[in-house]
């Protein structure tokens, strides 16, 4: 008896469609991953250009380059673009490229939704950036959009809210897709506790995104109705409470911080064992630490609001809850260091960025602990110390991990090795300049320089000059990153399938570059 069995696994390789429409209509996870990563890179430079304007204005005291309203727009939109346009899409791009290959799935579970969730983003950010050309200019109330200040924005206000909604819808669709893919499409034998940590961290990140995005959506919609529909959710004059907006915003906002860093933990947990040539120390504890951080992220939101006013018991609760986050985060740093301990270490570019991440993210973590101390926070709040803290976490944390990931998996994606010399040069110039940029901001903050101001007292001049010089060098040095990627895409030394001697995981069993359709037959995981 002959038997033909038709299942989802009966795929045969066929290449992509040709031309521009390939990218518009694609449902292939690798294409969509590439689109996300390119979009994130463009947004990184858009947000970076805004940072250059900020640092140019702050190079000297007094008003030099832009007017204060535009300066405030720069700080606001820089944050929105970097968070929602650069870091989150970059991680989603990495998830699209890597999760199916890491769990042995042929594609994402909902490929059409995957296409929609990407193509919403260019419209969302075009809309956000178009507000600069509207009466009243772009949003200038800070990325937190606290009322009543945010309600004083001009004609661009509803467009900004709509842009945030669109970006949120995109994030939710991306997250649902990732959750469904991980839970339903793992290869036989790929149990949850055998999944690579990048997959685990993304599963928990997607959980956080799904759990908090409706809160942001509700908050910004209530801002909209307060402005246009006569409601008073946040207007004290109408019986509302503007402080409630802050509570709601930060109930979303603090998990958002972990959304921006948990996938980075997964990336570093993949890279460090490869270049230490040892298995990851404490895999299970890494999983539980990630879940603990996710849980704690829901109960610490008011540490952003210590100075707003709350009962002492509340301040104590949020202070201690925040400090507890140091425990699972410390477990992670301990495990990475233990993985490196007595390993046969080499320092190729991905490892340099990973080690840089561990050291500088830890600096950002420690300054976070300082900010968690409620009485001390009354001194630090809304100063440049806070700016230094979150840039150490987000730039030398999240963005360094994205760069590490790019160097690590680029040979797999393109089939070509990147230029190692240029990669190392990129790392060292970036690392020196980023510390020149952000470390002096600790001093400025401790000396009392407030954040989100275009002008400052003359005693802050010297460290602002240093910081701006660091900023310009860091900004320009990122052009090297683009050149290294372009060079690797165009050619270079051919990469082997394994690429890195110590690499482990299903993606390394595929050819470099992988065919358009991978794992048409599910691999067996032992």
């Amino acid at each position, binding site marked *: 008896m002959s038997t*033909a069995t038709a299942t989802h696994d009966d795929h045969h390789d066929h290449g992509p469609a040709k031309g521009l429409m390939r990218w518009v209509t694609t449902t292939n996870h690798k294409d969509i991953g590439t689109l996300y990563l390119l979009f994130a890179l463009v947004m990184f430079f858009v947000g970076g250009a805004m940072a250059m304007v900020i640092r140019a204005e702050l190079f000297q005291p007094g008003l030099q380059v832009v007017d204060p309203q535009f300066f405030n727009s720069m700080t606001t939109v820089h944050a929105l673009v970097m968070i929602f346009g650069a870091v989150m899409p970059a991680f989603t791009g990495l998830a699209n490229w890597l999760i199916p290959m890491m769990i042995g799935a042929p594609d994402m579970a909902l490929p059409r*939704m995957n296409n929609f969730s990407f193509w919403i983003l260019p419209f969302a950010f075009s809309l956000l950036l178009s507000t600069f050309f509207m009466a009243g200019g772009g949003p200038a109330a800070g990325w937190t959009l606290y009322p009543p200040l945010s309600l004083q924005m001009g004609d661009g206000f509803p467009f900004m809210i709509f842009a945030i909604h669109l970006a949120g819808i995109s994030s939710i669709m991306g997250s649902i897709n990732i959750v469904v893919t991980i839970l339903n499409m793992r290869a036989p034998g790929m149990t949850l506790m055998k999944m690579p940590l990048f997959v685990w961290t993304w599963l928990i990140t997607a*959980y956080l995104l799904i759990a908090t995005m409706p809160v942001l959506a509700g908050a910004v919609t*209530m801002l909209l109705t307060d402005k246009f529909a006569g409601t008073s959710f946040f207007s004290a004059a109408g019986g509302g409470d503007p402080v409630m907006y802050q509570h709601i915003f930060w109930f979303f906002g603090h998990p958002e911080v972990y959304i921006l860093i948990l996938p980075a933990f997964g990336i570093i947990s993949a890279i460090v064992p490869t270049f230490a040539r040892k298995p990851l120390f404490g895999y299970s504890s890494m999983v539980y630490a990630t879940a603990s951080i996710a849980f704690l992220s829901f109960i610490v939101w008011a540490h952003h609001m210590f100075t707003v006013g709350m009962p002492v018991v509340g301040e104590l609760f949020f202070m201690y809850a925040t400090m507890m986050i140091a425990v699972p985060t410390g477990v992670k740093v301990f495990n990475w260091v233990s993985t490196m301990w007595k390993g046969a270490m080499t320092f190729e570019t991905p490892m340099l960025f990973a080690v840089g991440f561990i050291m500088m993210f830890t600096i950002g973590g420690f300054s976070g602990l300082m900010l968690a101390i409620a009485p001390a926070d009354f001194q630090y709040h809304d100063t440049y110390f806070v700016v230094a803290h979150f840039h150490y976490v987000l730039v030398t944390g999240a963005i360094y991990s994205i760069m590490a990931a790019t160097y690590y998996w680029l040979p797999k994606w393109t089939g070509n090795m990147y230029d190692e010399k240029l990669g190392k040069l990129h790392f060292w110039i970036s690392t020196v300049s980023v510390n020149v940029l952000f470390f002096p901001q600790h001093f400025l903050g401790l000396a009392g320089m407030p954040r989100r101001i275009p002008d400052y007292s003359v005693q802050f001049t010297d460290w602002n000059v240093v910081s701006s010089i660091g900023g310009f060098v860091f900004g320009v040095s990122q052009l090297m990153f683009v050149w290294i990627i372009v060079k690797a895409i165009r050619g270079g030394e051919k990469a082997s399938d394994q690429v890195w001697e110590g690499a482990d995981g299903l993606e390394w069993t595929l050819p470099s570059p992988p065919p358009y359709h991978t794992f048409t037959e599910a691999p067996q995981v032992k």
Partner: protein
Amino acid sequence: MIFLGAIAVPLLLISTALATQGLWLVLPFAGLELAALFTALYLVSHAAQRCQVVSIGDAVVTIEKGRDRGNCGDKGGPEERFEFARGWVKVELAEATGRWYPPKLWVGASGRRVEIAEFLAEDEKVELAAELHRLLSA
């Protein structure tokens, strides 16, 4: 379901708490999102288990449709089972009539026919049709 519950419980708790404070607009967004998550999880887990087996015997061609991946009838047999006399079996491939109307593959005989491989891509249906033709004429 555990994952869905782990999201739904905290999200509905916080949304309801906010609603009691007058901030009710979070609740509809939470509901919509949970519905989307549930639908996606249900549809994919349902579709991921679909399986069809076409068995070509000396005298009979059997088509079994079921949901147990790897063996379409592992628990209590297949959901649907069709038998056709092999000598009369016809494999029909209706070509795509437009972008939104993909090709369809039928197997049938004596005035009855069953659509198979609905979940395969266009070129895969063509390949399967050719394979069935080859096996039936062997």
